[in-house]
């Protein structure tokens, strides 16, 4: 029994240490991943020149996912929303900007309670929901 308590205490220490970060790291959000890595899974490219269509698609996708939209700005191309699920708060900001004359780059980033969402699967799911709403294929890479 004492062995299991020891094991528990060790995992507690490891977990606590693992979630600890300095002030600067928290502000700059420099985790284990590089800026480029983060961008690559948070970003997709769509073959369209219609910014408004993509933005309206982003808004309806977020609404389909039970988000309440808080703000949007057509000029900046940003949309933010929050959803509450099982006592958790998920907040997303999505930005849309033109790339060349016939493509749109969409970038999403989210946070769960007080942590950034760093699971690429979450972003993959979001973009596959967005694809269905836009009737366009999301392409990787900038």
């Amino acid at each position: 029994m004492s062995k299991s308590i020891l094991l528990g205490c060790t995992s507690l220490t490891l977990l606590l240490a693992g979630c600890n970060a300095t002030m600067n790291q928290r502000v700059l959000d420099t985790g284990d991943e590089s800026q480029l890595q983060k961008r690559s899974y948070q970003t997709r490219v769509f073959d369209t020149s219609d910014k408004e269509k993509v933005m309206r698609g982003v808004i309806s996708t977020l609404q389909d996912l039970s988000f309440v939209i808080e703000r949007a700005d057509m000029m900046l191309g940003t949309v933010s929303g929050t959803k509450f699920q099982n006592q958790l708060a998920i907040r997303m900001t999505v930005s849309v900007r033109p790339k060349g004359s016939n493509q749109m780059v969409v970038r999403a980033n989210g946070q769960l309670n007080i942590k950034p969402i760093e699971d690429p699967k979450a972003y993959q799911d979001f973009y596959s929901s967005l694809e269905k709403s836009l009737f366009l294929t999301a392409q990787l890479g900038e």
Partner: protein
Amino acid sequence: MRNLVIVCSAAVLLAGCVTLPPNAFVVSQEQLARRQIETRRYDGIKEENLLIASSNVLQDMGFSLDNSETKLGLLSASKQRDATHGGEIAAAIIIALLGGGATPISKDQTIRVALVVRPVQATVDNTPVDGHFVRVTFQRIVRRTDNSTYAETLNEKELYEGFFEKLSKSVFLEAQKI
């Protein structure tokens, strides 16, 4: 074994490392059903007028506008209201009488709403349909007497029916310019 479970769950709680629910970003059947409840279609009114009618309804309901982007058909608004609930107070009194100490109860709440107007993407005989969808979602963040908070999406069908009843009246008034 039981101790291990307790220690491990305490560790997880203390560390605050919550995990994203699986499929948090996949649209479920249930969410598609919610779309039906939260959406109504209005024909023969311009997007601009529909937004004006909607903002008037939100004002009727005591909401103050937080943010808007008319180019994308978005209005977001909020209001602060009392959140005390008879049943909850009664339960807290019973717990206190049974020696359970003071239980925090709901004190006040911030109710938030997002309303989005989007054009119907359809054509009849090659001419675009003159119709718009209005989708509305409500959330609330409740503060308890111990200042802890909890948040939830409001899901009651009746709430949305009540809202669209008001909106339909407002759209009629806007169309008639009353």
